[in-house]
Every structure is written in C-alpha cells, then in structure tokens.
C-alpha cells in the first residue's frame, strides 16, 4: 500500500475510534449522527451553515466542485490555462497569483463564495432571503417576492438572484454576472453569460443540500453540475473576516 494510503487508513481508524470526540472537535452540533435530527422546518433555510463535503469531495473541494472539472469551450480552456491560481494543483505563490480574490479582494462571485472555507448565515425576510457569508462579509440577496430578473440587469460580482419554492425545494436562479470573478479557486473561468441554478433542500433540521448547475455557452461546453452539503451550527456566530488583512499577509509568504 502506498505510504499516503496507509496513513489515510490510519486516519480512518482514528476517526472511528474517536468518532464522538472528533465530531465535537470538528464543531459539529451536539447530537449530530447520534439521534435522528428533527425534521426540517417548512420553507425555512435560516441558520448558520457550514459547507462541508463528503469524504470523497474533500479531495478537491478546497479549490473546485468536481473531481474532473468542467467541460470547457476553447475560449474557456484558453482562459483557464492562462490563469495563475494559488489554490488547487497549480499552487502559485501569493505574490505571483492573479486570483482576483487573493490579489484584489474582489468578491468571489456565485457559486465560488461557497468554496471560501467559512460559514454563512441564511436570514429570512418578507421579500428576500439574505445570505450573509463570513468571508469578507459578502452578501447575496435572493429576492422571493415574485420579481423577474431585470431586462437590463446591471452586471455584478455575485449576480442577480431570484428564488421560488417548488414544494420543499428553494429554486434560485442567478444571472447578471460581471467578468471579474472566477468560477472556482482552481482558475476555471466564466463569461457574463453565466447562469447559475441552485436547488436548496433542507433534508432535516441540521442538513441541507444545494444542487448547483452552472451554464455558460461561451465558457462551458456543457453544464457543470455539483451538489454541496451544509451542516447547521446553531452554536456558531458569523464573525468578521476582512479581505484587506490578506494583503498584509503577502510579506509572510514569500
């Protein structure tokens, strides 16, 4: 067995041996995995959530959504090849990377914001669902008052989002992206034609999944699909994390 595989097996054994202690350390809510969780409240995604992939997903979720990446158009591939990401397998140093999040503190965009490893809070209001992300206090507004996307939508980093309940699933449709963000932290690119559809389903009180489809006729040869998993953390508050602090750090990582 390769050395790294041997240690993965040992990690698995350590996990099983210490499972309840480990869950406490990893900040999972008390009772997670012991008794069945309470049922999901109806049409209510509110709470503080942490995106945490399956063990298989964790091999790549630090920087992208799937093991194999998207099917790219020639345009998309050219831009991907030219990008200099710091995360993912092409680990450029902070002083070399052209990742707009790391270099310029640009908002990460949608759905890349979910890859920034910090929690989010979902807040219901009468006309919109607000997602407040710990990463650089980024906000998404998902309008649920029945409006359509504007015909002449102003391009933004996070896009214009509208949401509607389909049974127990919140379907969120987002368009109107500028071209100043990356699709992920690996350097996959999108155009202003990016269209993101998300289907949020709260499985039970503590667990939520988001089925995401990214379409972009200019950058993606076919839709790029993934499913992200979120765990509720009622014991956490959203804290401050301001991107300009990252700039001060560049001198540390030469």
């Amino acid at each position, binding site marked *: 067995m390769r*050395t*790294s*595989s041997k*240690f*993965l097996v*040992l*990690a698995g054994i*350590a*996990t099983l*041996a*210490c499972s309840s*202690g*480990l869950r*406490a*350390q*990893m*900040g999972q809510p008390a009772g997670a995995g012991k008794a069945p969780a309470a049922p999901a409240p109806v049409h209510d995604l509110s709470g503080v959530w942490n995106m945490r992939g399956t063990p298989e997903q*964790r*091999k*790549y*979720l*630090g*920087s992208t959504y799937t093991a194999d990446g998207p099917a790219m158009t020639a345009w998309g591939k050219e831009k991907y090849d030219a990008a200099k990401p*710091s*995360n*993912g*397998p092409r*680990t*450029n*140093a*902070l002083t070399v*990377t052209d*990742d707009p999040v*790391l270099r310029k503190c640009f908002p990460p965009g949608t759905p890349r914001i979910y890859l920034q*490893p*910090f929690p989010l809070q979902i807040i219901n209001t009468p006309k919109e669902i607000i997602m407040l992300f*710990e990463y650089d206090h980024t906000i998404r507004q998902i309008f649920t008052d029945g409006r359509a996307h504007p015909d002449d939508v102003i391009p933004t980093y996070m896009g214009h989002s509208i949401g509607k309940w389909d049974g127990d699933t919140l379907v969120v449709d987002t368009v109107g992206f500028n071209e100043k963000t990356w699709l992920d932290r690996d350097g996959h690119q999108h155009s202003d034609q990016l269209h993101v559809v998300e289907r949020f389903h709260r499985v039970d009180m503590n667990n939520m999944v988001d089925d995401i489809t990214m379409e972009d006729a200019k950058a993606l040869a076919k839709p790029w699909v993934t499913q992200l998993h979120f765990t509720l953390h009622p014991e*956490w508050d959203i*804290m401050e*994390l*301001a991107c300009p*602090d*990252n700039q001060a*750090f560049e001198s*540390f*990582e*030469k």
Partner: protein
Amino acid sequence: MRTTRRVCFALFAGFLLFAGVAFAHHGTANYDTNKTVTVKGTITDFQFVNPHVIIVMDVKGDDGKVVSWQGELTSPNRLSRLGWSKSVIKPGDTLTVGGYPTKSGSPEIWIQKVTLASGEDLATGGGN
C-alpha cells in the same frame, strides 16, 4: 476541552498530515508537503489575527544556537471554533509545533500540530 478529545483529534490530524491533505490552502508552492518538521521552543510572539494566526518561537538548535522560527495556522475564526482564544498561549510559554517546512529551508512552518508544555495538543483544523 477534554484531553481525550484533543488527543483523538491530534491523532486524526496527524495521520492526515502524512496523507498529504490537499489544496485548500493557498500558495502551497512555498512548502514541502512531503516532509514534516517539529520544533520546540519558547514563544516570542503570538498573533491571533486574520488571515492566519502566527506563532513565533525561539528554538535552540542542536548546535546550541537560538533561531527564531515562524509558523502559520488557519484563520482565528476557525481556531476559535476549535477552542482557541487570543490568550490560549502567550510569549514565554514553551511550545512544540509540527508541520510542513518550506522548500527553501527557511525557519518557517505551515503548522499542523501544536503541543503545549503540559503535553496536551491544541486542535489545528488540519492547518487550513
């Protein structure tokens, strides 16, 4: 935080360390994730700030010379959820840290493991 849980987490994180957990951390080009280094010394600075918590330590080498080592951890936001606070350690404390060395051999570590003078480990969240 109970010792048993800390030890369990340390075991888990330790094994993951050697399994080479991947690419959530930026700029890994600077570090050699195929090696580990462990140093023990006296804390001279502890910055519990974003984006990365930093520990600076005076470490006496085998040659008797004292070298200042710097180590980085993840965000204090994540560490505080694992039980850290800005006063969990302080200058003057004895500490042992382990993690990935730099490729250049400079006295810097991407910290994966932190052990107090008492022998207790502090959870590090896998260094990301």
